[in-house]
């Protein structure tokens, strides 16, 4: 359990480095967007090294393209191994989705048909990634705006089946559960209740927006009250778990972001687990 963290974003570099130097940092860890640091040099990598020297870091990717029918990208995996060797992350995560096909990158987290053959396909690729990285990864449920005629099971059944078959961790994004539950009219509480607690490495919290009848995972608002309530439900079920607040657009002052992380800490301190915690699946 790393504690409560926020995303490491370039606009906050000076604030974060100053707080580390003054020992006034109020978060326990940072999550970094893997692809932003797959570069040769310059300020981003230097800041990452400086932050990592004092605080644990988790690598969170958006382009592993786990659900694609393209071959796994060897060059990407090689760069990921190099970055992981450099920062020694507490764990590595990416999304339960596909992000490109036929060599084209769509730079979006696209949902998959929730079908038995897709479970096998995805779990096989996750296992191969884990073998390459020599550790378990955590896969995150995404917000989605469409579903498929080919769906054979619910999203949470799909998530659980993949995680069990791949023997991987889960990054439970509570905001994404809330957003997708609204967009596809399923029960968010039942979703959270069905997630295998022992596999959850981490929880994500974020803000979302409304767009017509849909909710969109924009990461440009504070976490909504309904999502805080769902987070508390997840805490009762899962127990103490590393939690991170994402805020990627219309990014506020760093202090405001820390306030959101502190609210998560307070929620965790005042929420009792409903059952004794069992043994956890770990990254390595």
């Amino acid at each position, binding site marked *: 359990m790393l504690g409560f963290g926020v995303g490491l974003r370039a606009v906050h570099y000076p604030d974060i480095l100053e707080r580390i130097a003054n020992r006034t940092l109020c978060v326990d860890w940072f999550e970094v967007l893997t*692809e*932003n640091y*797959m*570069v*040769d*040099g*310059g*300020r*981003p*990598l*230097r800041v990452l090294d400086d932050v990592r020297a004092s605080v644990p870091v988790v690598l969170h990717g958006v*382009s592993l*393209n786990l659900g*694609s*029918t393209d071959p796994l*990208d060897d060059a*990407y995996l090689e760069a990921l191994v190099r970055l992981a060797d450099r920062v020694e992350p507490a764990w590595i995560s990416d999304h339960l989705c*596909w*992000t*490109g*096909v*036929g*060599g*084209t*990158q*769509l*730079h*979006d987290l*696209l949902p*998959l*048909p929730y079908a038995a*053959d*897709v479970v096998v*396909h995805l779990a096989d690729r996750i296992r191969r990634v884990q073998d390459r990285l020599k550790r378990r990864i955590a896969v995150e449920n995404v917000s989605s*705006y*469409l*579903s*498929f*005629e*080919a*769906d054979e099971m619910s999203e949470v059944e799909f998530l659980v089946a993949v995680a069990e078959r791949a023997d991987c961790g889960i990054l439970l994004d509570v905001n994404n559960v809330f957003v997708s539950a609204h967009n596809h*009219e399923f029960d968010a509480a039942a979703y959270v209740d069905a997630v295998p607690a022992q596999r959850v490495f981490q929880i994500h919290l974020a803000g979302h927006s409304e*767009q*017509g*009848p*849909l909710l*969109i995972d924009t990461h440009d608002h504070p976490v909504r009250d309904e999502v805080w309530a769902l987070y508390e439900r997840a805490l009762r079920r899962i127990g103490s778990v590393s939690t991170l607040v994402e805020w990627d657009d219309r990014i506020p002052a760093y202090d405001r972001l820390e306030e959101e992380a502190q609210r998560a800490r307070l929620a965790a301190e005042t929420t009792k687990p409903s059952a004794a915690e069992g043994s956890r699946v770990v990254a390595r």
Partner: protein
Amino acid sequence: MSSLAEVQIRLRHWITAPEGVETALASEPGGARAVVRGDARLSAEDRLSVYANAYFERLCGCLENDYPTLRWTLGEAWFRDLVTSYLLAHPPTHPSLRWAGQHLATFVAEDSRGEPFRRGRGWVGDLARFEWALADAFDAADTPALERSALAALDPDRFAGLRFAVHPSLRLLALEWPIQKLRRAWRKAGDGERCEPAPEELAVVPEAVHAVIWRADERVFHRSMDRSAFEALQRTARGEPFGTLCERIAEDLGDAAAPARAASWLGEWIDAGWIQARVE
């Protein structure tokens, strides 16, 4: 996985269609509904549109970040048209958005589909090259720079054979247009806060400019150079030995001036951090 592959290929086609999801789907009635579920709140087409809009807006935003002056000089509507044409020719293939705009300069300068954007604006290719070089310099590899003291320690008899390497962030651009004037106008307009440039701000005439771009203390700088010095630095970057460099400078500026000029330039380049510590 043929069915999953087919679903993904079809979604990619709809999401990236330059004319929009609805037009793309018009040629295959019922196509989306065979794959994507719609409901009373939103049709399959509307749900696909969320992803199509996000695809374009995300890439447009990324290219605006990489090419802010180009975006300002073209104006919003033309820039969005440029992005549409560009993405059709060069859909992103790299896992990082960092590389989405890597072909834009070549596209806008040389591709026939980029012609409407350079018509009457001969400088767009140079401007795009310049802004891409700034982005490239920002995260180029870190390498220790040569110190003057290290140079002084070298055996003078070896000097003619020495090959210096330039810092990985260094970019040398021989431009045909005074791009810095456009960049200054953009800055003056508040980094493009004032949306459309005035015609006189874009009234630049061709002018040979030798620009150098580099990173120092994690910040990216640029300045113009004298042609002779620029060409000497280009030769250095290509790995030509210092002796050959002196001979070329002698041909350019005369025998008497060459050695002192070469030594003076090398000193300036070292002070600017343009030369790597590794000397062969």
